[in-house]
């Protein structure tokens, strides 16, 4: 099983995602944003960071990178795609996920560990969790407030597409405490917390490791 970690100019959690996926036993490769294919990867990770400095809007410029055409194609054909933090923002800008990530309610960047509840185990990235399981994961973002219109939110809820919800401490004011969502086919997942920073006891939590335990997942889940 091969995971591609896409690097945009300004990505800065690319190495963390790479190491987390490697630790989970995957064959991992970096794909530069100018690439027009995914080098045969089964799973795509869009890592966190500040692609293009987040200038204009987070993800607004990165969505036009050449690689995004291949990512969209991969997603359309059912391939698993995970966007973490800035990756989530890019997926929303690229309209591979609905809604948007707005400036945090408190207007400040916020970095701290939060508790996140797993709301769906029906995605490739949460298949190894139980619904209702609480995870301790760090957040680190300035624009993490999930916003969508009511109809979209209801559609997400009804379709079981809310994947993660903040439990207790909502660090950014996200609507309905949403921390992560999935596409209609549930193969594309975006999340604001950083599972790749929570894969070792030494660093305080291993709760994120199972996100990357994708053995058995192949293109076209």
């Amino acid at each position: 099983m091969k995971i591609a970690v896409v690097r945009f100019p300004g990505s800065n959690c690319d190495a963390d995602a790479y190491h987390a996926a490697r630790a989970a036993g995957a064959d991992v490769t970096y794909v530069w944003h100018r690439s027009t294919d995914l080098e045969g990867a089964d799973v795509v990770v869009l890592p966190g960071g500040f692609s293009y400095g987040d200038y204009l809007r987070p993800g607004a410029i990165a969505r036009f990178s050449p690689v995004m055409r291949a990512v969209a194609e991969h997603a359309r054909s059912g391939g698993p795609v995970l966007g973490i933090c800035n990756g989530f923002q890019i997926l929303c800008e690229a309209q591979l996920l609905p809604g948007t990530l707005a400036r945090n309610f408190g207007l400040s960047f916020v970095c701290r560990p939060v508790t996140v509840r797993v709301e769906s185990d029906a995605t490739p990235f949460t298949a190894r969790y139980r619904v209702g399981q609480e995870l301790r994961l760090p957040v680190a973002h300035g624009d993490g407030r999930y916003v969508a219109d009511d109809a979209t939110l209801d559609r997400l809820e009804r379709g079981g597409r809310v994947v993660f919800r903040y439990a207790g401490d909502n660090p950014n004011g996200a609507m309905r405490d949403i921390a992560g969502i999935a596409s209609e086919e549930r193969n594309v997942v975006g999340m604001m917390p950083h599972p790749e920073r929570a894969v070792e006891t030494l660093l305080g939590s291993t709760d994120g490791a199972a996100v990357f335990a994708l053995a058995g997942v192949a293109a076209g889940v």
Partner: protein
Amino acid sequence: MTARSRPGDPAITSELVRRHGLNPEEFDRIVAILGREPTYVELGIFSALWSEHCSYKHSRAVLKTLPTTGPQVLQGPGENAGVLRIGDGWAVAFKMESHNHPSAVEPYQGAATGVGGILRDIFTMGARPIALLDSLRFGSLDSPRQRYLCHGVVRGIGDYGNCVGVPTVAGDVVFDPAYEGNPLVNAMCVGLLREEELIRAAAAGPGNPIIVVGARTGRDGIHGAAFASEALAEGTEARRPQVQVGDPFTEKLLIEASLELIASGHIVAIQDMGAAGLTSSSAEMAARGGVGVELDARRVPTREDGMTPYEVLLSESQERMLVVAERGSEQAVEAIARKWELESAVVGRVTDDGLYRVRWGDEVVAEIPGRSLVEGVPARRPEAVEGEAAQARRARPMPPTADRDLGDALERLLDLPTIASKRWVYEQYDTSVQANTVRGPGGDAAVLRVRGTTLGLALTAGSSGRYVWLDPYEGGKAAVAEAARNIAVTGARPLGVTDCLNFGDPEKPDVFYQFREACRGIADACRALETPVTGGNVSFYNESPSGAVLPTPMIGMVGVLADVTTCVPAAFRTTGDALVVLGRCRGELGGSQYLSMVTGETFGAPPSVNLAAERALVAFLVDAAERRLLASAHDVSEGGLAVALVESAVGAAPALGFDVDLSAYARDVAADAALFGEDQARAVVTVDPRHLAALTALAVQHGVPATMVGTVGPVGAAVRVVVRDRRLERPIARLREIYERAVPRRMAGAEGGLPAAAGG
């Protein structure tokens, strides 16, 4: 062909020379070096390189007295950053630098560009930046202006560090009216490299091309280096347009491009175009390599039309690097830059004539013996005399304080922003990116693991300006001793120091006395603790119309853990653990936060520093951690033992109470002095009762006094302290609330007029 002035250049008058910050003696020296009057461009070049910021003309003789060597030192002072070996072939590059004056004028950009500059000093050594630290000083948060400055500086540091993906893991923030007109913003960066990857910024190889990589050059901060060497005067407002704007996105690309360039083997040397821009970077690289350079300033890519050679040479536009490449590697260098979406341009060559020559197309606009720029400045030997006021405030007797309610005093101390939790600050920083942060902010020192090894790094930065103000020598010692304790309580062995010496106007004898004596204290402490100083920065002229800041020699320290899993937290861990105080109780209240809180003034002799006791304490803490005897360990510093205990208690999640009897420990000391005295060489540790005997025996072996004073816990319970007939009792939840709310409560609504922050 000698250098000529250009049409339109101003005439070289004594007024112009003065405005360039050069005194008549220095100007005469320049004329003697050149054998003629300088051109306007040359005057600008000398002005920049002979400024205090670049030349250390006031401080050089004193800095030479600092210890700089040791088996761990791979690179001492004189390079972009110092480098220490940490084991297994790994090394760390680290340095601290000030950005005080730019931050006073524009807090957001001033702080942001300070972070950008210190990052570049690290990755130009071939090291990947893995951590940032910041030591900040502001006036009282009761003033709207200070809240604005604090808000802007924190946001600026956060936006820059967060965007480049380097975690901000430690530092300190102190609020004191003495910093009212002149905040201190000191940023430290730590980078990791393999020993064999070290690259030095020495130009070599006549004929080798000199290449600018990164952002275009605009009219930013022209004469910033000279500006940093001047006290902030009323007229400073008029200089505002010269502020520089940071671009962390470009910086991130520069990090990647520079590390790839270094790894490629195509380059000989690389340096940040920092203060005084192209001029200082090229002159310093040439001087280190003992070669000459020839630049064509017209080839430098500019952001604005109509820039003059003077402006191109002295611009402080950010996110630019100067590279000396191997001859014939021009295209390879350009290809790497382009891959990272950066511009590059060949702007000159290394020469063998030792001259610093600048062309503007066919014209020669400057031609100066290169060495004279870096070494030719006449040293100043300022007078150093301790002021009478300083002697008087140190000698002033302690007033009676003992009958105060201890619980109320503790609560008021925890509400002081200097002592209170800095969560409001550090939660705006990405503290965990790169996934190496074992212990982030909020404890004594941060601890990072070194991926792929068992090694851990402990990092800290700070200083007590109050102690230095009262007694520069003891204060200098205390700054180093506290840094070493911060490192050692995590279980790490202190390895080396970078310093950032913030003082007032060195031409004032009392200021220079403070500087010289503080450095003597730092030197003695660094020798005793075997932590050589490998680099740093001097920032003079930290004055405003209201006077000089507290003399604040910031100490950044790096320590190493052989096995990062032995690292010890600052927070209590388990109910029932035994509480042990290390070090003696003397009840020293001089210069303490408690004394200032009670009297409204800072005076008295600051706590004396016994370097042998500090050394023993450090050795003991490292030994005990390696044997895994400690459940927690926390340094005793500002606010004394009581504050240290509460910090360890509220740091636990959930908070733990404690029950302590200090009657025996503080036998001959008044209750308030026992609780709030800031006696040095102390730490509070907790230990599983089963290990208590082993710990006590180890303490005896190291000659460290260890007194069991009580027990930890339970969760959510009260804090109880008894000193003979005096009692203090408070619910931990209440103390936690005060400690956590003190800063956010004051900062509420401080935002305003700041540029939008980016956030990913």
